[in-house]
């Protein structure tokens, strides 16, 4: 009976204040989608940077004056001693030509000597944020002719990621607060409509937990509805937007995280935010009535 009573009371209140309940769910959905979208954007940029870090090798070309392969190999410790270099792999001019030929049409290379290729090192960095600095240091090593690095986008992606992270954190805090405020005020309507019942409950000795519960249930139901709807909306939105992005810039390095890889996390976070906002909104809405 008690559980039935509580759940019935929670739902009764939601339908009594239908419009406000609808508005609350809508605002929670909107807040969650904004929060989720910036977070997913941030995640994607992170993944992109990771990709760049993995695949974006810095190629250090050895000067032609160091024609001898053994002499070129002697540069290895100097390159590895540069800060931020995580690994350096020597590639001889012959190996470079072989790999070139395997990648492209081998007939192009007919009659061409491997001398046109330079000895080189494939260098990986620990942190691409310091790529320009590292590039300068590598170029300063005697015997190094030139360093190829995709500086521009590495740098700008790091900047974008930092900005997006800060913006999303600020947004998340603000929007959680907004959701909580709206939720609390909607449930306050319900407590106001039932203030006499609440006063009587207090007088006959109902516990605060018991009096609070229908309002917490109301908050939970609204919060979970918001979380569930936001998840569905985010799913659709994400697929549409990423479909566009991939569609327009195919063939580039952009690799979008598929929604199914993050669906569980998004769902869990949305539900958790909905549940917390709902529960605390309910508790907050009724607290003034429980003082007597």
């Amino acid at each position: 009976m008690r559980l039935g009573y509580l759940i019935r009371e929670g739902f009764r209140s939601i339908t009594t204040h239908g419009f406000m309940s609808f508005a609350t769910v809508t605002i929670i959905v909107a807040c969650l989608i904004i929060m989720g979208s910036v977070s997913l954007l941030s995640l994607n940029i992170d993944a992109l940077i990771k990709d760049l870090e993995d695949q974006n090798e810095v190629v250090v070309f050895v000067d032609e004056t160091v024609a001898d392969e053994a002499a070129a190999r002697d540069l290895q410790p100097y390159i590895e001693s540069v800060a931020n270099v995580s690994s350096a792999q020597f590639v001889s001019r012959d190996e470079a030509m072989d790999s070139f030929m395997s990648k492209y049409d081998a007939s192009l290379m007919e009659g061409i000597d491997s001398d046109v290729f330079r000895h080189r090192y494939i260098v990986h960095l620990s942190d691409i944020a310091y790529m320009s600095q590292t590039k300068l240091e590598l170029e300063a090593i005697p015997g190094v002719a030139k360093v190829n690095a995709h500086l521009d986008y590495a740098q700008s992606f790091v900047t974008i990621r930092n900005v997006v992270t800060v913006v999303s954190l600020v947004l998340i805090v603000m929007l959680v607060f907004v959701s909580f405020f709206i939720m609390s005020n909607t449930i306050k309507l319900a407590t106001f409509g039932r203030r006499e019942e609440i006063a009587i409950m207090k007088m006959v000795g109902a516990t605060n937990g018991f009096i609070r519960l229908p309002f917490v249930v109301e908050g939970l139901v609204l919060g979970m509805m918001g979380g569930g709807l936001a998840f569905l909306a985010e799913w659709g939105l994400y697929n549409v937007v990423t479909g566009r992005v991939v569609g327009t810039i195919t063939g580039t390095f952009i690799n979008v995280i598929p929604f199914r890889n993050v669906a569980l996390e998004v769902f869990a976070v949305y539900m958790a935010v909905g549940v917390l906002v709902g529960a605390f909104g309910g508790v907050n809405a009724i607290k003034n009535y429980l003082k007597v």
Partner: protein
Amino acid sequence: MVLMQNVRKVYESSNTVALDNVSLTIEDGEFVFLVGPSGSGKTTLMKLITGEVRPTSGKVIVNDFDMSTIKRRKLPKMRRTLGVVFQDYRLIENMNVYDNVAFAMRVVGAPNREIKERVPYILELVGLGGREKRMPGELSGGEQQRVGIARALVNSPRMIVADEPTGNLDPVRSLELMLLLEKINEMGTTVVVVTHEKELVNAFSKRVITIDCGEKTGDSNEGGYYGI
């Protein structure tokens, strides 16, 4: 049971001394009228008993609970030993008579079976048998207050406190209602009734405690307003 010793209550907000140096004892099973002019502190004294306000100084003990130091989370347990009746009935408008009374049992977690047995019995006792399905708006003032009394009584409290329960009723209904409270008292429940209706008090020969300007000015077992 109520025990008050040198109780003083000051409302900070209006800087009013509502009660000053009040001491009194109400034993289990007593019927007591609490009388005095408007603004003399009667409601404040009732609120000290229900725990709605706390004494500024002095001791208040109600049904074995020390109301001057009681923890807020202990209040529900204490209030289950009390039945409170209000001047304006305070019924829930959108619930019928039966549900208004059953509500008081539901919210303290009484089992359904017990509610189904107890509510009709109490409604019969207060003279409302057959009115279960009526809404409060369809009842006379006297009937509404009977619902209020049924609700106060349904959880078998040790004491009923009623602050001007007949304040909105005509003299005949008032007398009938007081007779009902007397009947409840005779069944073993302590009853404390606040009123300022002289004729009503004088129609019974009960203990009368008089307060004036926040002080106890009379306590007579002879009955009669102001000890007359």
